[in-house]
């Protein structure tokens, strides 16, 4: 394999021939270059898509900063090359290398992939292959790095189980240190790969799929997932941090334009709303808020360290952040007159939100985004997102009359039991909204409707539910397209075939590893890119493996069925999810658990982890 100097030499010839060569050369402000000769433990973080999408990823930013604070470890980054660069790399036998030092990935001790969504899976295989590594865990030996992965999609690790040595389930801030300590001592003791993996499996929240056996029923459903030895736990409980650590403030500042050029500060983690389709809302419990001062200081620090002009305050439901008013007024006073753009997404649909946004609005104004998700009371009860139409209209009136010309509304179609009337109601509501806008600002008013398709996700109350059929989805999309694409109105929707892939992978079992490999061998990659996604490759691969997609997608699962991820625990009990599913079918809503604890199960399951640093027992908000 080429060494660093040879790689740099080849890059000189290759880079002038590819699009955006700045993606492949590192050298960014705040990147961390450590000395390979002095530091014994080396980790590479990989975001399995191109640089432009990977750099702003908050998970990678957090881990990069956290790991590089360790004096005994160096951490570098890599991204997947775009098609032109991949071709040039393969032609020139250039292995995938880390940006900081141009070192081939194969020379690191650990490679960590983040898996925020399923359509990145083939890129992981491609990255391993470009790195010159065997893609399957079973084919790697003591000379190869340990491949770990984490992120939201890892809550169902099974489809990727053949390729990843160890998954980190849940939050990585503390778990990564346990993993690195473990690999450091394994390296010092010259342990074999298997011995190292056994030690990793002993860390709470770590899952080594090779140590678990899956058996299947005759009908193809999973019969059981059992540890290969009694020394491995029956259930892997996710990792959480009891108190959110200080947010990152030394973001890598790319020298080229990427999808988000900004400082991102997580103001709160977790959500109590309990929307039944929402994976993030379920897997990130409990809610942990950052103090206002910590957030404001982090912004101040990050501005100094990066020179960015844009700040995003992130959370799953910003309006629920307890001190939101105080935060917004502090920020707007403290950072006034600095030509900054501050965004606060995920606001509840109420006029209060408009006031908040108004305070943050700098010189430039974008659109105002709201997510009603459904349009009839029946569907709102089903998904547990009750919102009154009048409340939405009043909020829209406020938005249009207070300086915004454009509103973006998010809806989701394809829920079980949804009818054409429910979909028509979406169109009607949108038309009402734009009508209100026109009354106030005339033809300047615009409305953008984003229509996604419901994908049943693991660890949610809808994990048993069926995906809507492709024909239904197309009919529903067509109904909306006919009515919502008039002057002043724009609509975007998801490709139903991509939805099928996402649904298959997100609730799949480990037999899908063969399918992912087969699709990748036939050319599947960048499945999240509309122009690169090739549905037929996937259908062929599924057929080749004797697995009709319907068994993963449009089939409603039995409550009694063993689900492929039942051995992975988010802390929420299966009972709670079953109860919520039943309530959905019965058309009943569930209140926000901020007001009244619903005993979802996380407190007893996560109790040891949730003790704060003085050993004080965690209380889930005021409730519990």
């Amino acid at each position: 394999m080429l060494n660093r100097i040879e790689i740099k030499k080849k890059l000189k010839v290759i880079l002038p021939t590819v699009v955006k060569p700045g993606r492949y050369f590192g050298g960014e402000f705040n990147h961390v270059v450590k000395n390979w000769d002095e530091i014994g433990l080396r980790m590479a973080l990989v975001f399995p898509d191109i640089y432009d999408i990977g750099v702003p990823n908050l998970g990678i930013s957090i881990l990069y900063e956290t790991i590089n604070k360790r004096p005994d470890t160096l951490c570098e980054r890599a991204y997947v090359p775009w098609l032109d660069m991949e071709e040039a790399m393969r032609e020139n036998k250039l292995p995938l290398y880390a940006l900081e030092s141009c070192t081939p990935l194969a020379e690191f001790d650990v490679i960590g992939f983040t898996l925020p969504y399923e359509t990145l899976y083939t890129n992981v295989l491609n990255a391993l292959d470009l790195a010159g590594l065997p893609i399957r865990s079973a084919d790697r030996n003591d000379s190869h790095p340990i491949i770990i992965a984490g992120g939201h999609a890892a809550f169902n690790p099974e489809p990727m189980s053949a390729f990843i040595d160890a998954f980190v389930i849940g939050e990585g801030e503390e778990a990564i240190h346990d993993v690195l300590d473990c690999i450091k001592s394994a390296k010092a003791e010259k342990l074999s790969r298997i011995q190292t993996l056994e030690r990793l499996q002993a860390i709470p929240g770590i899952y080594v799929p090779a140590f678990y056996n899956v058996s299947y029923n005759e009908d193809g459903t999973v019969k059981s997932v059992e540890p290969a030895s009694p020394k491995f736990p029956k259930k892997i409980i996710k990792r959480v941090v009891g108190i959110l650590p200080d947010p990152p403030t030394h973001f890598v500042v790319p020298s080229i334009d990427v999808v988000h050029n900004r400082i991102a500060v997580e103001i709160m983690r977790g959500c109590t709303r309990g929307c039944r389709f929402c994976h993030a809302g379920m897997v990130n419990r409990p809610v942990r808020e950052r103090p206002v001062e910590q957030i404001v200081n982090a912004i101040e620090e990050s501005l100094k360290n990066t020179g960015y002009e844009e700040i995003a305050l992130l959370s799953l439901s910003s309006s629920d952040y307890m001190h939101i008013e105080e935060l917004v007024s502090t920020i707007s006073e403290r950072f006034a007159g600095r030509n900054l753009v501050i965004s606060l997404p995920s606001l509840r649909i109420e006029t209060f939100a408009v006031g908040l946004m108004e305070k943050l609005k700098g010189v430039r104004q974008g659109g105002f985004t709201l997510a009603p998700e459904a349009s009839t009371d029946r569907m709102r009860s089903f998904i547990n997102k009750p919102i009154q139409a009048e409340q939405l209209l009043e909020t829209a009136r406020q938005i249009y009359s207070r300086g915004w010309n454009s509103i973006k509304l998010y809806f989701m179609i394809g829920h079980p039991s949804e009818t054409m009337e429910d979909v028509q109601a979406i169109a009607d509501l949108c038309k009402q909204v734009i009508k209100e806008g026109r009354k106030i600002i005339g033809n300047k008013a615009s409305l953008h409707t984003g229509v996604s398709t419901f994908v049943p996700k693991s660890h949610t109350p809808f994990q048993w539910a069926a995906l809507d059929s492709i024909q239904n989805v197309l009919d529903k999309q067509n109904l909306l397209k006919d009515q919502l694409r008039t002057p002043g109105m724009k609509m975007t929707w998801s490709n139903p075939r991509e939805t099928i892939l996402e649904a298959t992978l997100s609730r799949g079992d480990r037999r899908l590893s063969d399918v992912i490999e087969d699709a990748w061998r036939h050319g599947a990659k960048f499945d999240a890119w509309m122009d690169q996604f090739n549905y037929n490759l996937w259908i062929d691969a599924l057929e080749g493996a004797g697995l009709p997609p319907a068994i993963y997608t449009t089939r409603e699962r039995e409550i009694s069925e063993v689900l492929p991820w039942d051995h992975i625990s988010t802390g929420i009990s299966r009972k709670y999810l079953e109860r919520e599913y039943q309530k959905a079918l019965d058309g009943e809503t569930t209140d926000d658990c901020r007001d009244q604890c619903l005993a979802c199960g996380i407190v007893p399951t996560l109790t040891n982890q949730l003790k704060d640093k003085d050993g004080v027992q965690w209380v889930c908000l005021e409730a519990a």
Partner: protein
Amino acid sequence: MQRVRIHYFKGEALQYIGNLDLHKVWERTFRRAQVPLAYSQGFHPQPRIHQACPLPLGFTSQVELLDFWCDSDESLAELQAKLEKSVQPGIEIQTLTNIPLRSPALQTIVESALYQVILPEDCDLTPIQAKVNQLNGAESCLRERRGKQYDLRPLIKELTFSSSKPASITMRLMAMPGATGRPEEVLEELGISPFVVDVVRTDLTLLSIPEETETNA
């Protein structure tokens, strides 16, 4: 308000960063340094920074120029110290000079640029020497750029070859709006792949500006 011209080196770390992106790199450098840039008027106020002529991707330079306007009366030495602390690898600040507020825009006053091309060790020098002589002796050199024919020869003000190690070519090319010679095009004419050589911009010649009576307000 003052207007300041920075002379800096652009090094390898930024050789694949184009002009637009470099503009952002500088904006962020000023923000980190907490140098209060003046903003343009209008609905989308932009910080006032001007660059001289763009450097092709893959090249380094010892004469990049940038003008900025700032609402601060700090001395040049103070500004330079702040900027040096905040600048990114690949930029080496040389000097800061005050420029009269109303003197013409940087882009309009560059006349020509000097490039030094270092040839690789294993390169056959004889044909290159011959081609340099040939091009120097030619009346014109017709080429195509984006489907349009143009004459490269008048854009070359100077072209010399040196065989002393490492062998190199020096070229001075016109760099005026609408009349810009590109080093990679000259290299192509000489039968040299621009990918195997190191190209450094070593000088910019500015048009002599008529004496400014007005100085900084």
